[in-house]
């Protein structure tokens, strides 16, 4: 099966505006570093470090959430697992932070571990919601076709779970940014946005500009990537 063409941007103008939004945070950070007399390299390194931590945690969360969703979305397993997931997601993740620090130390692993247990739940529950929408007739069509194994995952369960995965990613990453900065501050990580806010905590102006920069970055990512992807994935499930 050839890969279907994924067109997540409606027009060239849409793409151009989106690309402008990618450039915007960089321009902001450059201007910001000049204004606050901070070395631009240091600022970009802080943002980059946090970004990489978030991306790694996000990728781990996506893989884990998808596997869990596929294993437990229906049948007897779902009856047992879903209440357990519900309890686990209600558990305050910050309560795990001292233990994580004790086990992993003041390290990237601690931050990533904490991010994973924050991000994974919205992604998992959104994928589960998507899988619950599988029509009985689709399942029958797959059963009659005899499709199984990897093909079943690739051609059936994966496409059905994509809209939930994207919705969950938007929510999860929103929570993730918050958890990321908080964890970096609490764990006193060297480098990263948490470290940046810690360093300039006595300077309200720089802190405010830093927050504005973070918001522009998150907004741009949503506009650039997630919202078009969300729209496209929902369109794909229209019958």
């Amino acid at each position: 099966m050839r890969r279907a063409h994924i067109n997540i941007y409606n027009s060239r103008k849409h793409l151009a505006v989106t690309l402008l939004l990618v450039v915007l945070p960089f321009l902001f950070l450059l201007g910001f570093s000049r204004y606050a007399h901070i070395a631009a390299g240091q600022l970009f390194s802080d943002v980059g470090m946090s970004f990489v931590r978030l991306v790694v945690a996000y990728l781990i969360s996506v893989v884990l959430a998808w596997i869990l969703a596929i294993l437990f979305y229906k049948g007897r397993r779902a009856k047992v697992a879903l209440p357990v997931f519900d309890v686990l997601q209600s558990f305050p993740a910050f309560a795990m932070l001292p233990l994580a620090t004790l086990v992993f130390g003041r390290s990237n692993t601690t931050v990533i571990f904490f991010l994973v247990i924050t991000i994974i739940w919205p992604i998992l529950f959104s994928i589960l919601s998507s899988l619950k929408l599988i029509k009985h007739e689709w399942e029958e069509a797959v059963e009659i076709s005899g499709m199984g194994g990897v093909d079943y995952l690739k051609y059936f369960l994966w496409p059905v779970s994509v809209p939930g995965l994207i919705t969950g990613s938007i929510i999860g990453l929103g929570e993730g940014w918050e958890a990321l900065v908080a964890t970096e501050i609490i764990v006193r990580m060297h480098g990263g946005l948490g470290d940046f806010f810690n360093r300039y905590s006595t300077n309200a102006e720089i802190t405010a500009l830093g927050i504005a920069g973070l918001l522009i970055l998150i907004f741009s990512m949503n506009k650039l990537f997630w919202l078009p992807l969300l729209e496209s994935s929902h369109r794909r499930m229209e019958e």
Partner: protein
Amino acid sequence: MSIILSAKHIIKTYHESGRNLSVLADINLEISPGEFFVFVGPSGSGKSTLLRIMSGLDKDFGGSIFYGEKLKPSEISFVFQQFALFPWLTVAQNIEFGLIARSVPDKKRREIVRAELTTFGLEKFAHAYPRDLSGGMKQRVGIARALATEPRVIFMDEPFSELDSFTATELRKDLLRIWRERKPTIIMVTHIIEEAIELADRIAVLTPRPGKIEKIFQNTLPRPRQERSQEFYRLEDTITEIIKP
């Protein structure tokens, strides 16, 4: 006489809030290879349930189903009332789906898909998604998908009931042409008596609560069948009399 499928003492009961609801009661029948067999009956006569039992989709039933003539489950296809197309796949990819499941090589797959697209006049829609198609086109894709795997038995669950009468008539003609050319066994359910008479070699009349075969008619009317002929009307009246509550 060779038999491709036989059903013996099929019963089906649903258990709902402590009560047993009998849906099918002691269904017995035998179907020959290449036959066009139609179940006709009103809502609640268990037609679709019986079709799912015979196709292997519903395994929770009493009695037994036997496949003859070395029929394998991979040689069975199903056409659904509401098409059951996968909305994330294009028309061509939907048709291709069963071929991937059967590990048909890439080149061969493309050839088969192209041929089915031509057969059903869908060439221009190969890269369209189901949401862009009319009901009639969607069911063309559904039938093309069912035929692509060269099945020996095709089950059809009220395949024309979601279509307007003009489209349904056209599609029935196409189906008869393809059936004559490829000679699969077709087992179909419908609630429209005229449709059953137009298509079937034999018609099993089901009555409801619980669903049971009231009578099986050998439809000897010459093909192509004339809907306005006296014999057509006579058979239609006879079946209506049986079904009438």
